[in-house]
């Protein structure tokens, strides 16, 4: 474990929505090019936490934040850091597939470039590599100009992954990416995650214990008890968290006693 480097580190992250303290002193380090799963019952703050990693939680007007998030040793909450620039390096995939309905499949893949005002020399190549990395190329290569909504839900989600990959992010955040998908599509997305893992740092929120065990190298267990703010109860290698949890609450959760 000692030779691991950390792409992304959260230090003493605290979040408030208005007066309500929802996350307290979260310290997590995400090893470079590994998959980290965030698990925990609904309302424990894991979705809020993943949003602090690319400053998406700031879209909620009442949100307050304290702490540091270090991306390659630079605090993304530091003075003069533009959240828009942060999001260029930290991609995000959402719970519900959200391809842009007015664009074709190809335009969706390139939408990030257009939206951030970037230019790229070889769009065709970028479309192909992004779709290949999201393992959807073979299904759509003959109909790149079809509307994105003509795809099935699972294909739409992989298209959204391809859309994030086209921006070349160092970190990919996934907020329950499979919760709206059927088991077959879920498997395809998980395979995609495993293929991407060697080249990028992935953080995934999931409600599905088996999914965490299948894809994640480390797992963090979040909990918010009796109205107290959410915090990390246990963080470690996935095997250890699931098979020999240190904290009894983790044991109860991963064995289905609550949540």
């Amino acid at each position, binding site marked *: 474990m000692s030779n691991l480097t950390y792409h992304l580190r959260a230090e003493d992250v605290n979040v408030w929505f208005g007066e309500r303290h929802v996350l307290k002193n979260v310290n997590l380090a995400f090893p470079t090019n590994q998959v980290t799963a965030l698990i925990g019952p609904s309302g424990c703050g894991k979705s809020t936490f993943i949003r602090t990693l690319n400053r998406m939680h700031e879209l909620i007007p009442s949100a307050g934040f304290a702490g540091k998030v270090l991306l390659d040793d630079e605090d993304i909450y530091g003075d003069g850091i533009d959240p828009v620039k942060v999001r260029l390096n930290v991609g995000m995939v959402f719970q519900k597939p959200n391809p*842009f309905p007015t664009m074709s499949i190809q335009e969706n893949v390139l939408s990030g470039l257009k*939206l*951030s005002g970037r230019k790229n020399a070889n769009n065709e190549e970028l479309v192909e590599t992004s779709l290949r990395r999201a393992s959807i190329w073979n299904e759509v290569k003959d109909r790149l100009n079809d509307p994105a909504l003509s795809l099935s839900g699972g294909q739409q989600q992989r298209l959204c992954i391809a*859309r994030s990959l086209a921006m070349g992010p160092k970190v990919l955040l996934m907020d329950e990416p499979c919760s709206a998908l059927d088991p077959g599509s879920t498997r395809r997305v998980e395979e995609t995650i495993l293929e991407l893992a060697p080249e990028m740092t992935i953080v995934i929120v999931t409600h599905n214990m088996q999914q965490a065990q299948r894809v994640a190298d480390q797992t963090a267990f979040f909990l918010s008890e009796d109205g107290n703010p959410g915090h990390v109860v246990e963080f470690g290698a996935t095997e250890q968290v699931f098979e020999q949890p240190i904290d009894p609450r983790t044991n109860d959760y991963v064995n289905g006693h609550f949540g």
Partner: protein
Amino acid sequence: MEKVTDLTPVARPKTAAPWSRKSPQFVLYASLASIVPAAVALGTIALTGMDFMAALFIVFLPLQIVAAALVGITVYGRRGILEGLLVVATIFLSSFVFVLLGSVIWSVISNGFSALSASFIFQNNYYIQPKTSLEFGGVGHSILGSLLIVGLSTIVTVPLGLATAVYLTETQGKSKGIIRTLLQAMSGLPSVVSGLFIYAMFIASGITTYAGWTGSLALIPLMLPTVARVTEEALRLVPVELRNGALALGAPAWRAFVQVTLPAAKSGIVTAILLGVARVIGETAPLVLTTFAADRTNLNPFEGAMGSLPTYLFNYIAFGFDESIQRAWGAALVILILVAILFISARVASRTRTKARK
């Protein structure tokens, strides 16, 4: 021993759901019960010369109620009385509304059609007297005037309305409540007041004489609330996931709006503009006070009186001669056709090119 199950499907009883289709027999009886009493009442008036109100209360209402109850009893038994009454009342009242609406449109078409001709649509009204035969002169200048005046208002109102809607939906502005209240108040503004205000401010004060742009100005406050509120609804309907998706890709807020939210709300925004245009294209009072009326074609909205279809109609119905009333009906029909053309072409133009999944 193996148990044999009967797999013949059982038809779902027709009465299983309150929204189940009524049987054709019931619909036929109910329709008869809605129409026959009205016909009998009208017949009684024609034959006996009975007073209309008397016929309504003595002949029509009792007949209608009894007929409706009978229909209910024959089809559903005693518990069907209320059902029969409600269905008959629904059929009768809704056909009454359709007849009213249809008769308005029909009277415009039947009276206005004979006035329509190439010369009526393309010529202006210069040298035409109220009693001149319909072979000469027409509403060409008024069509152009209406399009210019309303077009100018639209050019100003659409960006204003869009900006208002964006402020209400996309920003965290503090004055949202006030803006919404103002919009509501504005949509209750009587059009003649708007015209009078512009008249007093620009024409009575001597700043300008009658001119097209004053008319456009008077129409803006009438159009703005419709455009802003309908656009606001359209923007609100764009799922928040799409905005978040765009922002998560590293888009600045304005690019996310222009490239994702706006295209997704396109057809709603076109509807907003259409409703705004429809709201003002028939406005007469503000135009009578500001653009006045003209018989000559005037293509300069910044100088001189300008004709428009509603003011043309207003003037010619006021002359009171057969020919002039004929011209007024013609103008009414032209307004109807113009609105229909605008609506259909805007709908076709805004049809989204993306198709939903098969």
